[in-house]
């Protein structure tokens, strides 16, 4: 892979559009974000907001009936949308790794962990059988697995969710990728295991210099790990910026609502905030801001198209009546 030019992002998703239902219904409406080398970006949003579709489009494994209808995905300067099958397979295997929600289902149930791990190393890493075996053990060690010899000979159904996610991570980083896509990778895990996996991601990032696209609907998890955040709503990025900035001083009303709903700092059963209503369905078109119908601060001009994307110092949002900036105290 060619060396990256100065300031060129490792991954640039630009105006990506994805349609489902055989291309009939657009579900991702022009999503853009950059991931620079060594950076971790968090994609946050409700389920169905297009985070996973975006990830799958980047990986080139959209489900049948889903198609990229517009925009581009450039990885280290190479366009992935137009790439040939073989080229794509090469990039996927050597430069991008991926882990998902429900790790058990992403491992072949009838092959041992050792077999699946050494398969990657032999097929994609070009190692000989013996070398692959030793390397597999090293990788499991890297992801913090205990009793490695035992695990290598075990089948997925014999391992716990946390261990499976570690094994998947080992496979994902086995060929030393530059980018790791973690799609809800911690969602289905116990809270303690979740923390361990996040720790592990931090370690891997530090040791391997990984860039990470971290998808979650959990703001707390995102805030722990990510440098930047892109907030998804109804298939669009509605706000993006430095993690600290977005979380501390959100501008988009949806981000604010999301933070309120997730605010466990002053957790009180009686005041548990929920966002009323639901995001617009895929088959009902809307104009202007998709969040307007659920927004307490919406006005008439929220329903007309052409709401600009405003930026201020790397923090961008698309809201007609943004949350006022609090004066720094």
């Amino acid at each position, binding site marked *: 892979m060619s060396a990256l030019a100065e300031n060129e992002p490792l991954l640039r998703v630009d105006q990506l559009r994805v349609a489902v239902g055989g291309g009939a219904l657009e579900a991702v409406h022009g999503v853009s974000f950059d991931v620079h080398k060594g950076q971790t970006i968090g994609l946050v949003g409700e389920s169905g907001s297009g985070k996973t579709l975006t990830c799958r489009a980047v*990986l080139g*494994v959209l489900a049948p009936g889903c198609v990229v209808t517009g925009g581009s995905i450039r990885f280290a300067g190479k366009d992935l949308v137009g790439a040939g099958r073989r080229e794509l*397979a*090469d*990039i*996927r*295997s*050597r430069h991008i790794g*991926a882990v*998902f929600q*429900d790790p058990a*289902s*992403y*491992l*072949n*149930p*009838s*092959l*041992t962990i*050792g*077999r699946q791990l*050494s*398969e*990657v190393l032999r*097929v*994609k*890493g070009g190692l000989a059988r013996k070398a692959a*075996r*030793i390397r*597999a*053990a*090293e*990788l499991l*060690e*890297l992801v913090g697995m205990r009793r*490695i*010899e035992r695990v*290598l*000979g075990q*089948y997925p*159904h014999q391992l716990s969710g946390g261990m499976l996610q570690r094994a*998947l991570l080992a*496979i994902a*980083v086995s060929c*030393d990728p530059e980018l790791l896509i973690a799609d809800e990778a911690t969602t289905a895990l116990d809270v303690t295991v979740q923390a361990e996996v996040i720790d592990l991601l931090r370690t891997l990032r530090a*040791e*391997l210099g990984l860039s990470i696209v971290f998808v979650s609907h959990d703001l707390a998890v995102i805030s722990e790990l990510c440098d930047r955040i892109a907030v998804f709503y109804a298939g669009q990025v509605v706000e993006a910026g430095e993690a600290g900035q977005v979380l501390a001083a959100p501008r988009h009303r949806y981000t604010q609502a999301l933070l309120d709903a997730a605010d466990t700092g002053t957790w009180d059963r009686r005041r548990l905030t929920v966002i009323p209503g639901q995001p617009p369905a895929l088959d009902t078109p809307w104009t202007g801001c998709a969040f307007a119908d659920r927004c307490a601060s919406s006005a008439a001009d929220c329903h007309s198209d052409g709401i600009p994307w405003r930026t201020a110092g790397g923090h961008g949002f698309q809201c007609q009546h943004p949350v006022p900036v609090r004066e720094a105290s």
Partner: protein
Amino acid sequence: MVVIEQSAPLDVGVAVSPRRRSLRLLRSLGRGLAVAVPVLFIATFITYGLGALSKFSPANAVLGDTATKADITRMNHQYGLDRPFIVQYFSWVGRAVRGDFGTSWFTHIPVTQSIEQRLPVSLSVAVGALIIAVVLGTLVGIAAALNNGGWFDRAVTFVCSLLSTVPGFVAAIVLITVFAVSLPILPSGGYVGPSVNIGQWLKFLILPCLSLSLDSAADLARQLRNGLVGTLRENYVTGAVVRGYSTRRVVFVHALRNGAGPALAVLGLHVPRLIGGAVITETVFALPGLGQLAKDSALRGDVPVVQATLLVTIGLVLVSSLLVNIGLRRLRPGTGRAE
């Protein structure tokens, strides 16, 4: 490559050691036998009981309707048929285990000898059909699954459904009409042993094997297609694609292993059909096989021969299903444990 600092090389006792694997194989073999023994007992009991219930006796066989009561009693005593049923049964089983099935009531030829003569014919047809069924079924099934929803897939589904609605011999009739009558390139029936002329042997076997295999091939293709379509949707297949594997590797290493279960189970059901169902194929193509022997002997009332052919068939059925079960367990270790 990731560089990990390591003080000492890890001792990697990868996977299950060969010893443990063979132990597991032995255990599943043992479990299979534990089921097979009572099954064999019941099946043979029914088989022998059938002969005992029949109105045929060796005296009838030799003397026909002129046999007197005294003749029948004498001959029955000679053949040990006047002993209590249960004694007869166990002595029959005891002799059968040693390969002695008695002699025919009609020809007085040892039954073992007749079976040894006929078995190669039946096995040639059955094995030939099995090979065709597996090759054809696997190729068509995989192609249909990869073409999921396309015209080839739909054509395969249609042909398979069609084949399941016709009796096996109809396919045989169609094949004869086409290859032996319309464009006479293959014989419509008959048999030559492989030791006599191996080319002729193959020529005589093509149509019987093909007609016997069609039904199994269709079923196999359909099961494999359904199984594969299901597994190709699984996340671990997506996972394998994400790892950058070739389509061939994804299908053959990852999808097939998990999607072939039902197909293999169906194959287990079909192997006995290929052995037992050969009666009709043998009749249509005039092959001197085990099925013909069973049919002719049954119609004559040659009880020992019928019992022996049934017993041999049952044995073959049990052995084949045992093998398939072991295969299934090895293919999908998870299922064995779930029991």
